[in-house]
């Protein structure tokens, strides 16, 4: 029996220690490994150079996402269209060759299950509570929404996991982020996580594993929780856990890769033991209240630059920290904004609804509810809806959401990372502004010179129909 109360993180950690070294470093067993085309080629090449194999291909799953264009993938005859960019094409074919050579399970670009690696993991039931899950991508933190200890790793670590199914790790400190209360009308999980990052700062979670707790988190669907955990990394934390509960079990039951029959029952019994003990201690605790959270968005080039939609561009002089003052001025120069401007007076030329943060069916439903009966504003040059996976796309089409978007003037795309990062053909041109449901507003993230405002799907949809950053609450209540 445990001698002291433990957190969810400590329980998962304890169940995965293969060996503890004298210096405190632990060899940790990895239950699940997701692989995509960008961060794996050098890892497979490393294995090949050393004559090494993949230890547990059955615990590994590969899928292409970052590089794939999101325009049509097959021609009228059903033949795969070539990928114009030779480097992207090479990276994609390298993944295909590597998974074939090493016997790694693989979902191909034309498979209906293809999608963003962090969307398909939960969707297929590959992501399970109480597992350790890694991927060569920092937004692996998303999978923490199901109670998995999930974190992004570099390519050397990808190679280490492929070869040994383990990683050498130091235990992290724990931070509880508790959000109590009930969210107001028009306030979504994206607003919750933006508010959290605004509060703790972009480096606030460095060295910590976050556990999100409280009424607001408990009341969220798995999709909403995935949005919150996804952006743990924008708050500096490699992982963001949420304790598994009935919502989690109901979500997973019957998923293709989730346990079945007697295994399911055993798994659920184990998962019920995982939530943090009532008296468990965290190294740091942060509290927010739902009533303080409005629809929010970013104004600058760090995800911590968060304001409510009713707010204004801050004056760099208002920051106490001198280096923060300089950074804020630089941000404003890059963003082409001036202090004191009301957020709602800022026009946008692009709208992107997608990415592993907000491309699941509930996100598309939330956006469609705003778009329905409206049209994309004239000044918006490009409005993209990019479903997170082929299955999300199909579901949305079955619900008729695609028609709502298309008739409003949006483009309805194939699944992939798309405009979240400037790696495939979807980019924001230099000097133009994008209302984006993705997770990073860094300089150049959506293309050289691109200006990004991070916000929720409903807020992005509202910006699309008005052509400016808009309080979705006002837009929607104008209807009523």
């Amino acid at each position, binding site marked *: 029996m445990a001698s002291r109360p433990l957190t969810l993180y400590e329980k998962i950690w304890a169940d995965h220690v293969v060996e503890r070294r004298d210096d405190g*470093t632990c060899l940790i067993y990895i239950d699940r490994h997701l692989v995509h085309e960008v961060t794996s080629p050098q890892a497979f090449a490393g294995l090949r150079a050393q004559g090494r*194999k993949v230890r547990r291909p059955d615990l590994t799953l590969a899928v292409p996402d970052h590089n794939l264009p999101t325009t049509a993938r097959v021609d009228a005859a059903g033949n795969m269209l070539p990928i114009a960019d030779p480097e992207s094409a090479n*990276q994609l074919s390298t993944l295909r060759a590597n998974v074939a050579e090493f016997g*790694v399970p693989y979902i191909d670009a034309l498979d209906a299950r293809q999608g963003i690696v962090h969307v398909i993991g939960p969707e297929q*039931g590959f992501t399970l509570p109480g597992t350790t899950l890694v991927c*060569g991508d920092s937004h692996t933190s998303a999978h923490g929404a199901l109670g998995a200890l999930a974190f992004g790793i570099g390519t050397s*670590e990808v190679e*280490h996991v492929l070869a040994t199914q383990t990683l050498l790790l130091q235990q992290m400190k724990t931070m509880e982020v508790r959000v109590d209360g009930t969210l107001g009308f028009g306030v979504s999980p994206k607003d919750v996580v933006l508010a959290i990052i605004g509060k703790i700062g972009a480096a606030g979670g460095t060295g910590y594993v976050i556990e999100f707790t409280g009424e607001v988190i408990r009341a969220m669907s798995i999709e909403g929780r995935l949005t919150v955990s996804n952006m743990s990394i924008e708050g500096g934390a490699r992982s963001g856990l949420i304790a598994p509960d009935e919502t989690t079990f109901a979500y997973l039951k019957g998923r293709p890769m989730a*346990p079945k029959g007697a295994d399911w029952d055993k798994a659920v019994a184990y998962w019920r033991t995982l939530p943090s003990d009532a008296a468990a201690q965290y190294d740091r605790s942060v509290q927010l209240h739902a009533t303080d959270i409005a629809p929010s968005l970013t104004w600058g080039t760090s995800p911590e630059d968060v304001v409510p939609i009713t707010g204004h561009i801050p004056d760099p002089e208002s920051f106490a920290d001198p280096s923060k003052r300089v950074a804020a001025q630089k941000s404003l120069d890059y963003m082409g904004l001036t202090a004191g401007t009301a957020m709602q007076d800022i026009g946008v030329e692009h709208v992107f609804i997608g990415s592993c943060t907000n491309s699941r069916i509930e996100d598309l439903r939330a956006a469609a509810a705003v778009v329905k009966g409206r049209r994309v504003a004239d000044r918006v040059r490009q409005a993209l809806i990019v479903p997170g996976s082929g299955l999300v796309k199909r579901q949305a089409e079955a619900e008729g959401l695609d028609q709502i978007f298309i008739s409003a003037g949006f483009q309805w795309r194939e699944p992939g990372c798309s405009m979240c990062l400037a790696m495939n053909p979807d980019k924001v041109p230099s000097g133009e502004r994008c209302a984006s449901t993705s997770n990073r507003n860094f300089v*150049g993230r959506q293309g050289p010179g691109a200006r990004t405002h991070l916000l929720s799907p409903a807020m992005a949809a509202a910006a699309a129909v008005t052509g400016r950053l808009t309080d979705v609450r006002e837009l929607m209540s104008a209807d009523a």
Partner: protein
Amino acid sequence: MDPVRQVEGCAYPWGAKNIDTDIIIPAHWLKTTTREGLGRGAFETIRAQEGNIFDDPRYAGSPILIAGDNFGCGSSREHAAWALADLGIKAVIAPSFSDIFSGNAFKNGIVPVVLPQEAVDRLIEVAKTEEITIDLETMTVTTPFQDRFTFELDAFRRQCLLEGLDEIGLTLARDTAISKFESGAAEARPWISVGAGNEGVAIEGDRRT
């Protein structure tokens, strides 16, 4: 990996905060399938600016970079570490690093040195004219003006750097322990492997285990 005991030389006296991985190496450079040659894309947006620190002849080729808080935040791309290594950078000094970046740095023989802001400010001043020395044996950063700042490194990572160890090789030698853990876990949590359930997903190839 080659052993690293000391990094000595000029330093880029930069000090910028929240330098993210998209600044270190923009995404369009990530389409490579090798580790080499990324220095050309390193700090591309910064280098496009007139009078930037990386193209300043006083600092060209420096093995040390001095930065501000939260260096390497953002993506897990190891390309950031490869790009720095390709530029010839062997150590980065900053008040804090993102967790993923510092792991990637170690694995590529780049030392992430954490020092308090005051020490970093002082080193930025010194580096404008003088060389500095980072010593892994004594865990100190020193300057010709008798400054001496001590830093900490994770013991295992330090050992790997000092001896140039191959982590994968070390772990493969623990195969018996890993296999033992696996059979224990298969008992306790049978659904982990049984439930992987990826039948119906393409699998082929020679190197299958």
